[in-house]
């Protein structure tokens, strides 16, 4: 039993009304499964890889490359086999979350699809093209000031420096909503990192440079382990109730060099080894900065972590990303005097914080959550 169904332009946030098809990744006759990347679309500010939400065979591509397609408009037809009693296509992934998604607005345009568009007659020197790739500036959006309208390096750099109003606006709207709707409570806890860092350094000594791990990978895994133990921090709050999530998809705040931030999700962090977390983190940071994230990464985080790293402040209290119910903040690791077995010793500490939704949990659970993160970090070899 099979049925022909429409694959429609998905919405990657409440305020997205259309996207431009940059590229098909499938052709008629191809087998597709749920989660396969089928196309790349560009929204106002971001290029996003769109995942399929059904399994079957591509029957026909409807949308043409380069055209703007409204949300909900059929893009292709898929012959779906087996159980066809499921929800009508388009409903499942189209509204993964009722919230505006900050990430989809804030990603810079990707250089790769831009390059194909630019092949169609944009005049720019090789140097300007290189600079544009480096700065994530799409040449197609620039007006050249050089000879015969050619785009110069200066044009590219000017565009690279321009403030991203849309990104600021998206962050503003989401954070404003968070602070208006979510009663945050805040807890902080200093965690002794001396042993974990020594373990990490010894590990990094043994492996190739390209295999080294940074403390962030350990932090993320520890947070995921804690989220499994204290489930009230991991999930979403919608329709006046908290829904815990069965998966631990950690949103990772990635600051962009030109300002603003993206919060892509790393999936199933609790099931990954620290090394797998490290390579996922490295991959997602790289793609966030290039502006090539997947639709699901922008919509399905269940808990967010903001890690200021070495150059940051000692303590950070985050603002929850609705509809999530908590955000973990990790400051920089510093050496501090500590009482150890009756003596003062110098140890490495990180201050871990949680900002949590008081509608979903109480401070007692928040404290248990931080204690679980601490416990996990005391036994890094078990992570």
């Amino acid at each position, binding site marked *: 039993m099979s049925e022909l169904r429409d694959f429609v332009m998905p919405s990657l946030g409440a305020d997205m009304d259309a996207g431009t098809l940059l590229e098909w990744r499938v052709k008629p006759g191809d087998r597709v499964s749920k989660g396969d990347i089928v196309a790349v679309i560009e929204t106002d500010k971001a290029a996003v890889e769109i995942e399929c939400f059904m399994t079957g065979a591509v029957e026909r591509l409807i949308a043409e490359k380069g055209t703007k397609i409204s949300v909900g408009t059929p893009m292709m037809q898929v012959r779906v086999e087996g159980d066809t009693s499921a929800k009508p296509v388009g409903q499942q992934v189209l509204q993964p979350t009722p919230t505006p998604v900050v990430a989809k607005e804030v990603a810079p345009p990707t250089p790769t699809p831009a390059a194909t568009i630019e092949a169609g007659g944009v005049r720019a020197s090789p140097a300007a093209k290189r600079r544009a790739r480096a700065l994530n500036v799409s040449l197609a959006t620039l007006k050249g000031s050089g000879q015969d309208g050619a785009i110069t390096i200066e044009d590219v750099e000017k565009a690279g420096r321009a403030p991203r109003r849309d990104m600021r606006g998206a962050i503003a709207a989401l954070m404003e909503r968070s602070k208006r709707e979510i009663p945050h409570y805040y807890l902080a806890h200093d965690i002794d990192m001396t042993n974990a860092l020594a373990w990490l*350094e010894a590990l990094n000594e043994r492996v190739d440079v390209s295999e080294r791990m940074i403390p962030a990978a350990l932090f993320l895994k520890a947070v995921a382990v804690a989220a499994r133990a204290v489930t009230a921090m991991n999930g979403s709050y919608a329709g006046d109730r908290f829904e815990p999530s069965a998966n631990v998809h950690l949103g990772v705040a990635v600051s962009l060099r030109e300002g603003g931030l993206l919060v892509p999700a790393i999936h199933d962090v609790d099931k990954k080894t620290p090394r797998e977390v490290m390579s996922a983190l*490295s991959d997602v940071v790289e793609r966030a900065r290039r502006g090539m994230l997947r639709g699901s990464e922008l919509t399905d985080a269940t808990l967010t972590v903001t890690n200021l790293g070495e150059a940051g402040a000692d303590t950070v209290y985050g603002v929850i990303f609705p509809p999530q119910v908590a955000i973990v903040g990790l400051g920089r690791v510093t050496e501090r005097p500590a009482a150890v077995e009756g003596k003062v010793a110098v140890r490495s500490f990180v201050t871990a914080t949680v900002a949590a939704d008081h509608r979903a949990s109480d401070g007692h659970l928040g404290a248990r959550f931080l204690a679980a993160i601490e416990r996990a970090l005391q036994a890094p070899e078990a992570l």
Partner: protein
Amino acid sequence: MNDLRRIIVEAIADVAPEIEGSALSDDAPLRDQVDLDSMDWLRVIVKVHERTGVNIPERDYRKLVTLSAFVTYLQGAQKTES
């Protein structure tokens, strides 16, 4: 010397394209001139390793404060290895 400097500057510019390589000062702390987090820094170290073969252990990161200190470190490491 100039080759090593160029390799380091290229590695940094790869990771932080907004900087102008020529604008980096040799003697001011790199951290004050370029915004590099630990992931960025690791990518710089990996790129320098690819180009020079020098494997910089983490405990030596603190010796790489300025561009000139970084160059001196790599010169020393290459001498020891050869």
